[in-house]
């Protein structure tokens, strides 16, 4: 069963057609990679999934709900979380606070006036946040201010925030960009573990083919705003259309 269903999505900025009749379907419980040359419209497409952009035409359905015309926080409450290309974190809060905010958002919904409850007394939330930090191997940085960390750490923190919400669909925009090889491998292992343990559906944009082929069960190739191929990884490598898109079509 497909959890995310994208049909006939078009989006243009001024005269530029960024997305051109995009069709895509992400199967529940799988890792689906979206690859393609620079400027193919990958990030634009993700932005249409989280309410940052609204497509000109077309439909985006998640678990039977349309994601168009509803606000970003509502989309997240439906179970869609996103890791951004440049980490979006609460830079002047501590690492622990960053993660526990995500835990509260999951538990309390979009708004709760729990102004008299003490964070210190919320043991289950604290434990959950700490467990998340252990999972991404950051527990030793628990009380550091987020802005003081390296880019790779910020990205792992953002991933911990997203995972703390137990999303149904996790969108990852180049989750390993700027990471060292070892960190990249750790991240691959982490994502694979989580995927196998909880069966979260993941849609991942990635340039690093090592990551793509380690994780993805299905790959969509986006070129010039449209999906040219959607297939299993082993069939992608030799596909002439893909080679053309990367080598010839880039200009």
């Amino acid at each position: 069963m497909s959890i995310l269903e994208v049909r006939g999505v078009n989006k243009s900025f001024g005269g530029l057609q960024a997305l051109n009749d995009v069709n895509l379907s992400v199967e529940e419980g799988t890792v689906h990679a979206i690859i393609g040359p620079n400027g193919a419209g990958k990030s634009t497409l993700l932005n249409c999934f989280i309410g940052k952009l609204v497509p000109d035409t077309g439909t985006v359905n998640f678990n039977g709900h349309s994601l168009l015309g509803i606000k970003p926080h509502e989309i997240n409450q439906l179970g869609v979380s996103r890791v951004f290309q440049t980490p979006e974190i609460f830079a002047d809060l501590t690492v622990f606070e960053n993660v526990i905010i995500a835990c509260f958002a999951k538990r309390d919904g979009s708004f709760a006036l729990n102004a008299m409850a003490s964070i210190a007394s919320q043991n289950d939330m604290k434990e959950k946040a700490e467990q998340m930090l252990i999972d991404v191997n950051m527990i030793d940085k628990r009380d550091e201010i987020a802005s003081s960390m390296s880019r790779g750490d910020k990205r792992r923190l953002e991933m911990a925030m997203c995972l703390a919400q137990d999303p149904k669909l996790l969108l990852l925009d180049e989750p390993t960009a700027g990471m060292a090889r070892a960190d990249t491998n750790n991240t691959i292992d982490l994502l694979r573990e989580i995927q196998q343990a909880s069966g979260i559906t993941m849609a991942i944009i990635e340039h690093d083919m090592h990551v793509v082929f380690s994780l993805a069960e299905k790959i969509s190739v986006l070129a010039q705003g449209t999906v040219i191929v959607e297939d299993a990884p082993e069939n992608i490598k030799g596909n002439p259309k893909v080679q053309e898109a990367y080598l010839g079509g880039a200009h």
Partner: protein
Amino acid sequence: MLGLNKKDFGLLTIVIILTVFAPFLLNPFPEGSALAQFNAGYPDLMQRLVIFGIFAIGFNILFGLTGYLSFGHAAFLGAGSYAGIWMIKLLTLNIVPAIVASIIVAGLFSLLVGWISLRRSGIYFSILTLAFAQMSYSLAYSVLTPITGGETGLQPKVSDPRIFDAALAEGTTPRANLFGMFMNDSYELSVAGWVFTFNVGYYIAAIFMVIAFYISIRIFRSPFGLMLRAVKSNQQRLNYTGVQSKPYTLAAFVISGMYAGLAGGLLVAMDTQAGAERMFWTASGEVVLMTILGGAGTLIGPVLGAGFIKYFENIVSKINESILQAWFSFMPEAIQDLFVAIFYPFIGKGGHLTLGIIFMLVVIFLPGGLMEGGQRIANLFKKKTKSDTGSGNASPAAAE
């Protein structure tokens, strides 16, 4: 204890001790001594210190946590004042209805203003709040004169209805009270050369401030408070984390509006008068100054800022030229005149000049206010003892 951790409970205890012993602490100099004019232990000023402390604590919940800079909070203080004075005029000289009404009216008014103003952020938000406050001020002065008393303001009269009270005799002054304790009653204690004044109104206002301070600690340490800090830090991320920021900012706005209303109600309870000048935008600017000066986003900073500014306004502005002359009288006359000439512009009526300069220096060099200054000094002393700041969940340095 009381749902606070050790550190916060310690802070609360310090505030309680300071307010209880304020009549002693603020009167360190013997009566009649040369420094007696620096004594601040008289009822009127002490009441103001704690009441504006409440105002600043509330403002800090909005500005310190969310970063939304309101330039119109005096409107809520003013609205609270008017609500309070009407309760005193219509119902009873007992201050309970006045305080309750002032909080409710200011809360509703801030709900309306906040609901509209919070549709914008940044400087637009500041200007919207400013516009609302100036509108309230102008209306209070003109069209709303039947409700506000216009330029003369409102005071209780013997002829007021006061349906819960027995009629007052002609010629007596209506005095506000709390179940028979009159706000302007004081007990004076003379010890050697010192005179200490214990005022009923001050202690009642102080109890309110301690409660207000306690609630503010709870808010700071709650998930709600954390969400407010998240709004300040990265509103986009918060939305993509499934949280709607506007209800949070609006709640913070209304809470701070209610604090302002409480301050307004207490002002009325103490001096039984209300006027439009309390709503003027400079009054809004003053609470901004207090909060920044003390340290926005810190717990106790705004209280210190309020105390500092009110003390300064009342004490330094009373120093006049002849007092200056007396201070420098040990010098040769020419040098004495020179010193008087140098210092004179900064004291007395020029007190605001000094305040403005201090404020600028704080914004430029100490964005974290006096609290940051104190912390830096403290850090100098414990430089050697490991560079572990141990911010924990307090992180007052995150005040940006």
